[in-house]
Structures are given as structure tokens and as C-alpha cells.
């Protein structure tokens, strides 16, 4: 329903008009008798239309209209008046009235006309509002678009409208843009070549440069479409600023270049692995592997991995790609194309590569590092081994933190556990022998003050109660001001060395005593034989005090016949120093007696290698020489005997072993002398031999007996053995002499003889018995007449043949005996051969 406000000063007319307008219930009619009343109502209520009289007492319809419009109220306004003046009508229309109706005819027709005009004005106003609202929406849309929009007359290519985005992009205000040709601002190269208007395209979209008001240009993506706006053809040209996109693309390209450069110039091999092959490999990867980039990207990457590490790396790769847990950094070996081995450290992460999971791998060549590590490890091991082998403990005192650190060897040296030690200097002090403790601490402090080097020895008391001697060395590290920062040193056990030093001292004393008390004369001479020292035994030996001999030549105490030879020996040895072996000389005692001296000497040298002289020993062998000849004779007998003659001491150790023993037993003298004589006695014979030897050692006489011994080749040899005691000068039994005779040949002879007797018995005695038996049978046959002469002859002939064979066999055996045994006298051999 339309709401109508009727304004007229005539109440009757108002009532008539209300009646007419409201009768078809299309309109709701309100009334006002003056403009002022109407304006009050209009302030409160919105009407679809106002119908006002012109000629009202206070305010005319025109003035009412002006007031209404000046207040911004655009409600449709119809002047419905009795005055038909043209000027009033003109004023009404000019001041915004929609219609001017004159009441001058049939009221029925007048109100029909008014109704029609009311409808029309409302409709028109509503259309106007819709247009206005539509335009407003379009304007807002245009103004809110981020893209620039130009509306261009299609015929003239004059820009008629530009939205703020377009103005912003072009750096201009609307006045600078509208009214200008689009060819000047947007498409300068397309004048007369416009794709839409000249070339007939319906739509154009392309990248262009948009000219800005300041003369610069920006890249834009332009879309142009032809539309009809009102009754004219326009081109709507929208453009999007591509500057940021271009900038981004440029930055992206720069970034890509940068990353590419970074990857290619990297000192690490960078590879992307996907589906078991490499998708990217940089120059370093090519250098690491020796394969070309093309080869790398076409082969399964496990080929590049050392066979021993391949399974591990592939497992990690698969696990990582599946999203499982795998180390992101580890070390393995590559196997380059040349077959060598390279250690690499891998740092890996999972990335998207062409929307598929892949691994980004950074490989650092650590071959040199590994070598260095190995070398370092070896050196460390070697140092550790050396310190352990040498029993050297290493300690470090941090003088800033006041802590003392020991290695394992230190704990071992001191016998202290880590828990007890606790890293305190005082603990170390407490371990030092009380007698050495104060000195040690003082030396330590002096070293810290830089007064001396730390190089000392001390004793420690271990918890197990043992006292050990320690040698200690240390160096002090200082800052630039000379303040000590730390002290590093070593300890090692010199208990053994100390013991050796003590023993050496004792040994020297012993030797000195021995030299002076020994029965032989010890002497020192220079290279010419000039005596520089003579032991006190010279008094007994030669009748001279040592002082009487020192300063004299050794040869001065030799008898005249030997002087020259002794002198020559020293002369010769001066040029070619060598040991002087057992020189026998006739020496002249102070009392004029001649004794035989046996002397030997060794040269001794200065540190620079020059011969200084000789150290010698001389002994009186006068008595020995007298008995020597007899001993030589006995020795010759023993040596040349075919029997084994073996001497042994009371502990069964072999002392002598002659050539006969070597022949019978197979062992040389060197192999047997000094060893247990029972080594050649069979196990089963040992107890019996013990008993026999015990008897011999007790002085009982023992008959010779047959026994066996084990030869060197493991075979047994049968011997006949006799034992006799060896007595010393005092008649005490000090050993046993064993004389053994080899029974092998004797046994062979006996065996052969047995074989001969046996064979003789078998091949001679039994056949003779057989022949005898058969002759008896033949005799019986003859006596019984139970044999023909031919049979008798034949049987006797057989026995003759048998007899001849016996004789032949006997001869054959004789030959064997006579030629097989050289021990048979020749006369008997001839006899047997007959």
C-alpha cells in the first residue's frame, strides 16, 4: 500500500481527495492543512509521496517543496492546485516537483489522473533509488577493487573513469587521467591496433607496461573487455600491478641463482636422493665420486657407497623416507669410481622434491680427518702403551682451580683409589714418606716459583705398607705475567733401579774382596804391558808385594826364555787388540824359583774406543802341568775307545761324553753334557738303574750287566755296562763313570747263528730222519715181497735224490756262514767252502 500525505488548507478538499484516493485501498492517505504540519509529520513518518496544494495561506506549495528538498528529503512531490500559471509550474518542476496537476475539470478525472501520477512518481522514485543504490554499489565495488580499472569510451578511446587503485598505480589523480586517450597512458604501441576495437577480439589479457604520471612505468596484467554502459560502448580495462610479483619472481630467480651458486660452490657434496637415485648432485659430489653429474643422476645411489657400509646407509635412508627414526648425522665410506675409499660425514634431512619425499644430503669429506684421528689414536695408544709399558704415571695440577688430576698409572703407582684420592694436593703429600715429605713440598714450591726445575726422587708409602721409590719430573706452565697456571709431570717407580744400584754397590764391594782374596793374581796393565794394578795375591804367587810390581812391565816377571814372546804378544795386540788366551809362561819368583804361570787377559777401552790396556788374571799351574801329561794319556784312551765312557755327577748330570758314546747313542757331547743321564734310559730300566747306582755311590762293587738304552733316533741299543765310582782328591765319591759296550753286533751274530742252527735242523736233521724212515718202509716192503724191482729202484732213487739235496743244502749253508761272518777265521772259511 502506498502512503500518501495530502497537504491543503481546504479541509473539504482534503476529505474529498482522501475519499477518492483511499477508496480502492491501494493507498493509505494522511492529511495536513499546512506546510508546517506536513513538515512535522514528514520528520516522523516516511511517505511514498507528498501531494500538496500550491496556494496555501502561510507557506506556498513551492516553498514547502523547497524546504523539504533542502532538508534532503527526496520523497516524490506532486503539486495539485487550482492555479494554472505556467510560471508556478516551471518553479515547481525546477525545485524538484515530480508532477504539476491543475484542478480544472471533472473531479473524478482529476483524482484518476492524480492516482496515476502518484503511482508513476512513486515508481519513478523507486527506480531512481534503485539506480542510485546500484550505482553506489558499483562505485563502491570499483573503488574497493585492488586492481586498477579504467572505463574507456570504445569509440574515442578516451578514459572516462578511473578507480582509486588505477590512480594509485598510475601515480595520478582523476583529472590527470580522465579525458585522456588510453593510448597515451596504457597502450602507446597499440594505437589503431587495439585488439578489441581494431582487431575484433572480444577479450584481451596481456602483460603491459603502465606509464605513470612521473614518467616511470610498472608492469601490469591488463584485461580488456567491451561492454555496453547505458547506451554507449565502453572498454573496461582492468590491470593488476605485477611489480610485486615481478619483484618476487626476480628475487626468487636471484635466490635460486644464489642457492645454485651456493650449492655448486659448496665445499660439501650436496645431493638429493629420491626413490633410490640421485635427483641433484653438485660439483663437489662429482669431485668426491669421480662420476659425472649425468652418471650420478642415472645410477642407484647405493653403488656409490662402500660395500661394508651400504646396508647401513640404505637402511637409514629407507627408514628416514618412511618417517621413521634414523640418525641425521653419521659417518660412512664412499667408494668413488676409481675404487678408492673416502670417509664422509653425512648430514641429512627429509624434504619435498617435486611433491614427493626425498632426502637432502650434505657430505663432508673427512678422509684426512679420519687419517688424522687414526694417527692421533695410534699416537695416543702408543703414548698410553709407552707410559703403561714404562710404568710412567702422568699428573696435572691446576693451580687456578687448585685440583690435582692423576692418570690410571698414577693410581697404580701409589696404590690409591680415585675415591680416596679426591684430587687433592694434600692427599699426594700424605702418600709421601714422612722423611721425604717436607723436602718434596719445598722442591715443589721452588719449581712453582721458577727457582728450579722439578726433577726429584722420593719415597712413597703405599696403603699396602710397601715403600716404593719414585722419580718425578714436571714442567710449569705460566701466563704472560709469569704466574703459574698449571704443572704437568710424570712419576715412575725406580724401586727396582734403586735396588740394582744398592746391589751394584754391594757387588763392587764383593768383587773387590774377591779380587783381593782370590788365589789367582789379578792385574791391570797398559797397552805395553806396564802394570797399573796388581792384587795382593802377587805376594804368594811371585813373592812380590803389589807395590813392587806396579809400574813395571809384566814381562819383567817372566823368565828370560819367555820374555820376548810375551813382549811380542803385547806388541801385536796393540795393533789388533784381542783377548789373550791362557798364555803359559815360566815366571821368575822373587826367591829365584821358576813357576809356570797361566795368564789370560782381555783388552779394555776408553769411551772413545781407544785401547787403554788389559785386565788379566794369572795363576800358578806348576802342579797342574805335572799331572797334565797323565791326564792327557787318560783322555786319549777315553776319547779313542769304541766303548761309551760317560762321566756323571752324583745328581746324574752328564759331565763327560766320549766319541764312543756319540757313536753308540747318537747324541753329541754338546747335546749331553750338563743334561740328565737318565734321558737315554728306558722307563722300565730306570728303577733298576737307580738301585745299581745307589749301590755304586755307597761304594759297593757292581758286576757289569746287560741293559738297553734309547738312542737319539728312538731305537733301543743293547749294551753291556760296567759302573765305577769317581773319587775326588779326598777319596769321596763325587760321581760315576759308566762304560758301555755295544752288544748289537754280538746279538746279530747270535741271531744269525740261531737261524743257521734252526734252518740246519729243519732242512738237514728232519729230512735225514725222513729218509731213514722211508728206507725202513722200503726194507719192509722188500722183505714182504710187496714191491716190484722197478718200484724198488724208483723209491731208492728218490731217497738218493733226497740225500743229494741234503748235501747240497749243507754246502749252501756253509757258504752262507763263511761269507756272512768276517769273524770266522780264514782257514775255517776255506774249510766250510769246500
Amino acid at each position, binding site marked *: 500500500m502506498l502512503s500518501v500525505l495530502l497537504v491543503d488548507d481546504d479541509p473539504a478538499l482534503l476529505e474529498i481527495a482522501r475519499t477518492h484516493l483511499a477508496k480502492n485501498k491501494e493507498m493509505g492517505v494522511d492529511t495536513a492543512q499546512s506546510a508546517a504540519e506536513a513538515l512535522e509529520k514528514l520528520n516522523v513518518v516516511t511517505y511514498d509521496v507528498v501531494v500538496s496544494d500550491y496556494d496555501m495561506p502561510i507557506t506556498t506549495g513551492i516553498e514547502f517543496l523547497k524546504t523539504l528538498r533542502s532538508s534532503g528529503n527526496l520523497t516524490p512531490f506532486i503539486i495539485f492546485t487550482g492555479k494554472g500559471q505556467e510560471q508556478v509550474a516551471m518553479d515547481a518542476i525546477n525545485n524538484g516537483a515530480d508532477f504539476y496537476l491543475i484542478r480544472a475539470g471533472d473531479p473524478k478525472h482529476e483524482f484518476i489522473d492524480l492516482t496515476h501520477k502518484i503511482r508513476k512518481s512513486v515508481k519513478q522514485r523507486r527506480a531512481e533509488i534503485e539506480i542510485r543504490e546500484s550505482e553506489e554499489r558499483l562505485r563502491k565495488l570499483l573503488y574497493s577493487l585492488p586492481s586498477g580499472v579504467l572505463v574507456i569510451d570504445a569509440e574515442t578511446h578516451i578514459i572516462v573513469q578511473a578507480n582509486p587503485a588505477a590512480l594509485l598505480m598510475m601515480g595520478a589523480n582523476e583529472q590527470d587521467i580522465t579525458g585522456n586517450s588510453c593510448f597515451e597512458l596504457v597502450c602507446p604501441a597499440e594505437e589503431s591496433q587495439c585488439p578489441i576495437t581494431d582487431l575484433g577480439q572480444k577479450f584481451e589479457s596481456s602483460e603491459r607496461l603502465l606509464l605513470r604520471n612521473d614518467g616511470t612505468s610498472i608492469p601490469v596484467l591488463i584485461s580488456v573487455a567491451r561492454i555496453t554502459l547505458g547506451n554507449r560502448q565502453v572498454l573496461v580495462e582492468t590491470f593488476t600491478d605485477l611489480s610485486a610479483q615481478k619483484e618476487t619472481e626476480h628475487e626468487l630467480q636471484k635466490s635460486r641463482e644464489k642457492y645454485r651458486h651456493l650449492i655448486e660452490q659448496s665445499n660439501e657434496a650436496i645431493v638429493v636422493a629420491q626413490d633410490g637415485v640421485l635427483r641433484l648432485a653438485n660439483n663437489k659430489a662429482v669431485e668426491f665420486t669421480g662420476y659425472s653429474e649425468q652418471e650420478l643422476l642415472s645410477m642407484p645411489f647405493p653403488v656409490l657407497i662402500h660395500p661394508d657400509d651400504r646396508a647401513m646407509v640404505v637402511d637409514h635412508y629407507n627408514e628416514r623416507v618412511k618417517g621413521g627414526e634414523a640418525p641425521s648425522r653419521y659417518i660412512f665410506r664412499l667408494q668413488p669410481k676409481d675404487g678408492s675409499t673416502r670417509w664422509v660425514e653425512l648430514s641429512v634431512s627429509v624434504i619435498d622434491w617435486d611433491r614427493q619425499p626425498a632426502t637432502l644430503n650434505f657430505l663432508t669429506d673427512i678422509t684426512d680427518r679420519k687419517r688424522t684421528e687414526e694417527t692421533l689414536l695410534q699416537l695416543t695408544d702408543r703414548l698410553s702403551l709407552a707410559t703403561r709399558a714404562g710404568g710412567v704415571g702422568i699428573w696435572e695440577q691446576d693451580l687456578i682451580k687448585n685440583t690435582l688430576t692423576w692418570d690410571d698409572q698414577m693410581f697404580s703407582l701409589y696404590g690409591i683409589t680415585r675415591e680416596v684420592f679426591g684430587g687433592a694436593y694434600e692427599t699426594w703429600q700424605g702418600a709421601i714418606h714422612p722423611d721425604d715429605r717436607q723436602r718434596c713440598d719445598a722442591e715443589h714450591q721452588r719449581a712453582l716459583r721458577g727457582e728450579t726445575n722439578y726433577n726429584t726422587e722420593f719415597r712413597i708409602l703405599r696403603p699396602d705398607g710397601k715403600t716404593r721409590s719414585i722419580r718425578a719430573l714436571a714442567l710449569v706452565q705460566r701466563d704472560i705475567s709469569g704466574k703459574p697456571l698449571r704443572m704437568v709431570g710424570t712419576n715412575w717407580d725406580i724401586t727396582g733401579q734403586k735396588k740394582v744400584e744398592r746391589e751394584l754397590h754391594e757387588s763392587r764391594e764383593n768383587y773387590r774382596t774377591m779380587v783381593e782374596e782370590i788365589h789367582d793374581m789379578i792385574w791391570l796393565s797398559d797397552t805395553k804391558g806396564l802394570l797399573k794394578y796388581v792384587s795382593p795375591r802377587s805376594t804368594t804367587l811371585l813373592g812380590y808385594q803389589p807395590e813392587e810390581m806396579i809400574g813395571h812391565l809384566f814381562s819383567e816377571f817372566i823368565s828370560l826364555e819367555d820374555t820376548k814372546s810375551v813382549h811380542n804378544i803385547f806388541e801385536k795386540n796393540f795393533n789388533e787388540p784381542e783377548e789373550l788366551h791362557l798364555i803359559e809362561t815360566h815366571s821368575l819368583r822373587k826367591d829365584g824359583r821358576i813357576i809356570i804361570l797361566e795368564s789370560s787377559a782381555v783388552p779394555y777401552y776408553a769411551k772413545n774406543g781407544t785401547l787403554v790396556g788389559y785386565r788379566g788374571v794369572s795363576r800358578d799351574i806348576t802342579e797342574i802341568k805335572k799331572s797334565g801329561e797323565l791326564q792327557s794319556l787318560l783322555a786319549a784312551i777315553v776319547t779313542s775307545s769304541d766303548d761309551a765312557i760317560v762321566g756323571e755327577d752324583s745328581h746324574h748330570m752328564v759331565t763327560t761324553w766320549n766319541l764312543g758314546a756319540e757313536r753308540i747313542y747318537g747324541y753329541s757331547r754338546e747335546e749331553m753334557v750338563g743334561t740328565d743321564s737318565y734321558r737315554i734310559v728306558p722307563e722300565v730300566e730306570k728303577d733298576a738303574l737307580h738301585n745299581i747306582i745307589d749301590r755304586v755311590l755307597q761304594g759297593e762293587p757292581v758286576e757289569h750287566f746287560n741293559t738297553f738304552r734309547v738312542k737319539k733316533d728312538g731305537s733301543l741299543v743293547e749294551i753291556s755296562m760296567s759302573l765305577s765310582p769317581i773319587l775326588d782328591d779326598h777319596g769321596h765319591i763325587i760321581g760315576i763313570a759308566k762304560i758301555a759296550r755295544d752288544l748289537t753286533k754280538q746279538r746279530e751274530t747270535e741271531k744269525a747263528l740261531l737261524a743257521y742252527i734252526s734252518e740246519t735242523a729243519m732242512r738237514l736233521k728232519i729230512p735225514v730222519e725222513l729218509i731213514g724212515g722211508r728206507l725202513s718202509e722200503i726194507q719192509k716192503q722188500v722183505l714182504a715181497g710187496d714191491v716190484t724191482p722197478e718200484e724198488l729202484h724208483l723209491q731208492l*732213487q728218490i731217497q738218493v735224490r733226497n740225500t743229494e739235496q741234503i748235501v747240497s743244502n749243507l754246502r749252501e749253508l756253509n757258504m752262507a756262514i763263511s761269507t756272512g761272518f768276517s769273524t770266522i777265521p780264514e782257514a775255517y772259511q776255506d774249510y766250510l767252502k769246500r
Partner: protein
Amino acid sequence: MRFSADTLNDNRIVLLLADSRKLKQTNTAVISELTRNGYNVLIVSVTLPNIVVRRTYEAAEIDLAKIYVVDAVTRYSDGPTVPNDPHCKYISNPGNLTDIGIAITEWIKPLPGEKKCLFVDDISTMLLYSPSITISKFIHFITNKLRLFDVAGVFLAVEKGLDPALFSQISTFTDLIQTIEDDEKQKALKENLSAD
């Protein structure tokens, strides 16, 4: 103790030891026992010529059809031989062990169901012509052949006529060693037992 052919059922090769004066008697008794028990016998004779062997066996009523003789003494003693004698093979001398071995090998293959026995007369005489080591090897060879063809064997030797070494070797080749007591000894033994 007398020899019984049943002995050969369990002990296929037997060494018979007999007194040197009773060898011929033992020979005849053993052959008689063997032939009576169905054995065809090959006699290797180094003591008696074939002609005497046959006459002796004939006198003892031995079936001569079961006898085949390898005669090693007739030729050696220049005695008469029968050419192509089907029951006798003449060997040049008792020391020709090769020919004796061949003769045994030719004879040894038995026909199905046939019982055969080799009889060697005697080892002691063979020792007159060959060293004991050779005789030992020969007997080893022959006993192996006999066992291969399951033929029985009886080796005769003089009691106490083999030295310990040879006796030991032969005893390892044979299954049984049997000493033949002569009748006089047995008789004396029985008298002693009854007197006790």
C-alpha cells in the same frame, strides 16, 4: 687221535702232524677217510711216486676214481711216467712250487655239489728243496686259493719237524692243527690210564 673227515666241516684247512716213521700210514688213513666220505682228493706227493701211491691206495681199497695225483718225485728220480695220464700230473722236482701251484689251480674249481680236498704230502720233505720262507709263502698262496673256492685242505708234516717261526706262520694260515698219535702211543697211554 685219528683224523676224521667231519673235522673239515668246521675247519676247512688242517695241519696234520705225524711221526716221521708213520707218514705213509697216516697218508693212507687220511685219504681213505676222505674218499669214504665222498671227497675227491688232489694229492700233492713229494715223497712217493704216483705208481706207488696208487698201488698203496688200491691195497687199502681206496676208490682210485676219486684220486688225482700231482707227482713231484717220479721225474726227478728218472722214473717211468704215463703220458697224458688223466689221474696224474708229473712235476719236474719237489722244489718246482710254481708248477705245483698251477696244477692245484687247474684242479681246484669244484663242480656244483662236489666235495674236494687238497692233500699235501708232506711239508717237511718240501723243506728239503725250498727255504722255509718260500714254503711259508707257497702255503699262504695255496690256502688263500682253497678258501676262495671253498675247497678243504690237509697239509701233512713231521711232528716237531717245523722250526718255531715257520710253525707259527703256517698255524695262522690253517684252521686247525691236529697231531696224529700212533697206535702204540695210544695203546701205552690207555694202559697207563687203566693202571692209574
